[in-house]
């Protein structure tokens, strides 16, 4: 059954959610990011969060295990949290990340523990939040524990899972509502770009790229990482995983100093091909959610959607 949440009652709803775990939502400071919230006035619900919420699944730096001599110690990750105000793009990022970390032959159990301890509460977009959004061309799925639809003085509330159902059961019932599909002015012309691999225009984009890695850092589905050991003077230490970027030259360097993606244009293309071509060929869904963060946050203002637009004109 669908429900009604009066905007006046949002504060009380947040309190209800807090019984699951710490509530995080988009908060505007220098920029919009997910921070702990205890009051609805802290929320910024009309802008895109600059940073994605991927660190709730795979922190920028995490300890895989600690060691002390020959002893190896692992710790469970069971802190519960509610992510409130997620947009459809960021909700889809969970499905995409699951493919790599949960659904293959090998599984990352830390990812799974964190994943199972999240309650995902979405806020539906009828239109783009800014000129960088292009989710409407990315075939996103409906995926959430709870989804809110702004209907003026109230939110229409739907649950997507039994877990979500539990937290809205107390709200007043209402008739079902079919939301209009999200519209964005910006659109990716095609996800099929295999035939464009040798296109000259890639160079245009790559020529202004500085391989800074902001794009991969900001992308909700870029979770490439490196593994290394940190050791203290007393011999105790930890094996840690940290986000890495395919935009860095060292990313593919092997013994003897050979770098497989030595040329910047090859690294620039690899990211985009992975996002909309390679991943889709393997998993039948795009790895890009159309959130626009990699364009919004590129210091060189490289607009790869326009670039592909040019190639496919």
């Amino acid at each position: 059954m669908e429900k009604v949440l009066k905007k006046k009652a949002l504060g009380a709803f947040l309190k209800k959610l807090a019984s699951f775990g710490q509530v995080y939502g988009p908060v505007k400071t220098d920029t919009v990011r997910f921070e702990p919230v205890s009051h609805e006035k802290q929320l910024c619900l009309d802008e895109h969060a600059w940073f994605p919420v991927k660190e709730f699944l795979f922190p920028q730096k995490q300890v895989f295990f600690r060691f002390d001599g020959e002893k190896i110690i692992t710790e469970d990750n069971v802190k519960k949290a509610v992510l409130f105000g997620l947009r459809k793009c960021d909700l889809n990022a969970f499905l995409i990340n699951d493919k790599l970390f949960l659904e293959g032959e090998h599984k990352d159990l830390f990812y799974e523990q964190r994943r199972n301890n999240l309650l995902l509460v979405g806020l539906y977009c009828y239109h783009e939040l800014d000129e960088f959004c292009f989710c409407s061309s990315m075939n996103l799925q409906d995926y959430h524990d709870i989804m809110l639809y702004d209907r003026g003085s109230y939110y229409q509330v739907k649950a997507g899972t039994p877990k979500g159902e539990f937290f809205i059961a107390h709200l007043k019932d209402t008739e079902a509502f079919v939301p209009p599909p999200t519209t964005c002015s910006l659109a990716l012309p095609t996800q099929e770009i295999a035939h464009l691999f040798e296109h000259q225009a890639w160079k245009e984009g790559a020529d202004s790229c500085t391989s800074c890695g902001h794009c991969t850092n900001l992308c909700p589905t870029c979770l490439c990482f490196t593994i290394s050991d940190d050791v203290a003077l007393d011999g105790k230490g930890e094996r840690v995983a940290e986000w890495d970027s395919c935009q860095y030259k060292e990313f593919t360097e092997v013994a003897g100093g050979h770098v497989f993606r030595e040329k910047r244009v090859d690294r620039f293309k690899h990211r985009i091909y992975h996002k909309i071509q390679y991943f889709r060929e393997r998993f039948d869904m795009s790895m890009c959610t159309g959130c626009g963060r990699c364009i919004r946050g590129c210091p060189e203002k490289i607009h790869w959607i326009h670039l592909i637009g040019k190639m496919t004109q």
Partner: protein
Amino acid sequence: MKKIKKLEGEGNHYSVPKLYAINSIKKQTEDEYLLRFDVPLEHEPAQFIQVSLLGHGEAPISICSFQDEYFEMSIRAVGNLTRKLCALKKGDKVGLRGPYGKGYPMESLKGNNVLVIGGGCGVAPMRSAIQYLERHRSDFGDVALYFGYRNPKEVLFAEDFNKWKKTFRVHVTVDKAPKSWKGEVGLITELLQKDSFDNTNKVAFVCGPPVMIKFVIALLKERGFNDDQIFLSHERMMKCATGMCGHCMIEGVYTCKDGPVFRYDGVKDLHG
């Protein structure tokens, strides 16, 4: 004997290795050491293991044997971790997790003649396939081994060659050699060119530096080999070995889980 399917540590995460004592460590060349672990591990020829020393990191190393009671790895000291590994003694413990990846699909290749072509340390993973061939000799036809090294000092597994000569055709060449070297001198492609092999019922295993691979494949194609008769082993930067970290990707292919051994038709059009 009951075989172990997976080397893995205690706890709840794939990254955790299990510590094993080295049962023997033997110097092979100036930079290469052979480590043996008396663990009955189930594996495919040329699968690899993530080998680590707590505090010094982890590296992918190929299994270079195919035996019931033990497995071996040949390690070349090239950097921080591999140098430390090569300096270890019998009884010292190292962390192991694996085996990972796809090795040579030997079962499905039964009945073929086999051409094994290896350069430099590319010979290590092939030794695993060769030991498989030794143990299943009657399931395969003619087997010819071609190995190329830069100079006699770098010749890996020299002591195996005499044994292999009894059952296989074995050719070893070095790029450059002092007078004392009794064997062939010259590039491996020159050696292959002299041989009049063709592609009848044959598969070729190729492993070595990129330049060598390029020339060898060109020659194989000249001799009528189809792409699906050629198997290549690729080396890429690896961290997780489980298809998550992204380091080993060649386009959309993961070297750690789709490889490191690939049939040529599946990877020949990939860039990088």
